[in-house]
């Protein structure tokens, strides 16, 4: 199981084993990591699972699909490393992925 690291806005670090096939959002929600709300349950309709992907990881991720960038318009302080974690599906290639969580989810 790949290890995914979630860093809260306060700096608190959570490193968790997340099964392949789950999303980075589900990994956080199932492990009670604060800072990811995922109000819509992963249908790319709410932008409350917004994360900042560590720069060195950003280009290794699958590109955004149509709609993700639109939703990110509504996120709290998006930047060029912003992604919706419900769209990041965990696989062996993501072993060691690090994401920073925003201060609030809008």
């Amino acid at each position, binding site marked *: 199981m790949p290890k995914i690291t979630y860093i809260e806005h306060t700096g608190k670090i959570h490193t968790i084993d997340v099964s392949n096939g789950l999303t980075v959002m589900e990994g956080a929600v199932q492990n009670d990591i604060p800072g990811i709300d995922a109000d819509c349950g992963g249908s790319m309709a709410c*932008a409350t699972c917004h994360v900042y992907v560590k720069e060195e990881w950003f280009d290794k991720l699958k590109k955004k699909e149509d709609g993700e*960038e639109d939703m990110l*318009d509504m996120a709290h302080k998006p930047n060029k490393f912003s992604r919706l974690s419900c769209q990041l599906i965990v696989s062996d290639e993501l072993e060691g992925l690090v994401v920073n969580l925003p201060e609030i989810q809008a």
Partner: protein
Amino acid sequence: MIDTDVLVIGAGPTGLFCVHQLGIIGLKCEVVDNLDKIGGQCIELYPDKPIYDIPAIPECTGEELTNNLIQQIKPFKTNFHLNNRVDEVKKNKNNWIIKTSKGKEFKSPNIIIAGGVGSFEPRKFAVKECEKFEGIGILYSVKDKTIFKDKIISIFGGGDSALDWAIELSTSSKVQLIHRRDEFRGAQSSVNKVKELEKEGKIEILTQYQLNSVEGKNKIENISIKHDDGNIKKIETNYILGFFGLIMKLGPIVNWGLNLDKKHIPVNTENFETNQKGIFAIGDICTYPGKLKLILSGFHEGALAARGCFKYARPNEKLRFEFTTTSKNVQERLGLKND
């Protein structure tokens, strides 16, 4: 004060089907929703997205599902109180007294909360000092457009609301349209119109900028916006309009004495009652072991919660289980004529 058997909070698919189930068993209800239209998340978040897991409906959009449910509950002539958020819920003997944000009052032995993930509220600016100017110089919706006449307006956002208001206000105000990236997600025709107006000098478009700070004592004088490359630009502004869509907030529900598990309300799975007698929770907002956030689960939960309301609404009667196919009572409630 409106007297009813059940107050349903939330006009999404779960609330709508629950209205049907209440009607079938002969209970009256009133529906309150904070949005300006019926349909909840289905209409607000994904009206055009196809849904594939409604039993016996291979494919439908959120809007079609909503319209079908509205059709299905027509016989019950239910009152909808839209643009109303339930702010206060208080116990009074065997009833609940419910007050909304617009001052409406209800008295009912039952409340069914079908509130999704809470009520929809506008998303706000991340900048701290924005709170101070909210409702004065910073607005998230337009109620009276005459206040913008001959003023300088900074509109933030890239969707239809931002584009439409930029176009509309450009006739009588100086409009600056500011968006975090070069692409706008609104309708192409609106994007084209905005770009035309930019060429004519009627709108200024500033992309890859986000709000950085707001300056002014009692009213806004200047704002600074920050480019992706870090550069900060100061611009004169009288009003700021932010259009970042809506977000769901649990809001006043937290004050009603209900147990909460994160943002959800724990219920029993027999009738979806909460820890408060006569308050039920169904759909996305409720939680119990094995809970699935599916519309079909919400339908099931609503059917049982409706029956759970019966004993409080009709304490001296016994609820008899009846099928729509055969029950004359039920068919009468559905407005069907029996020959």
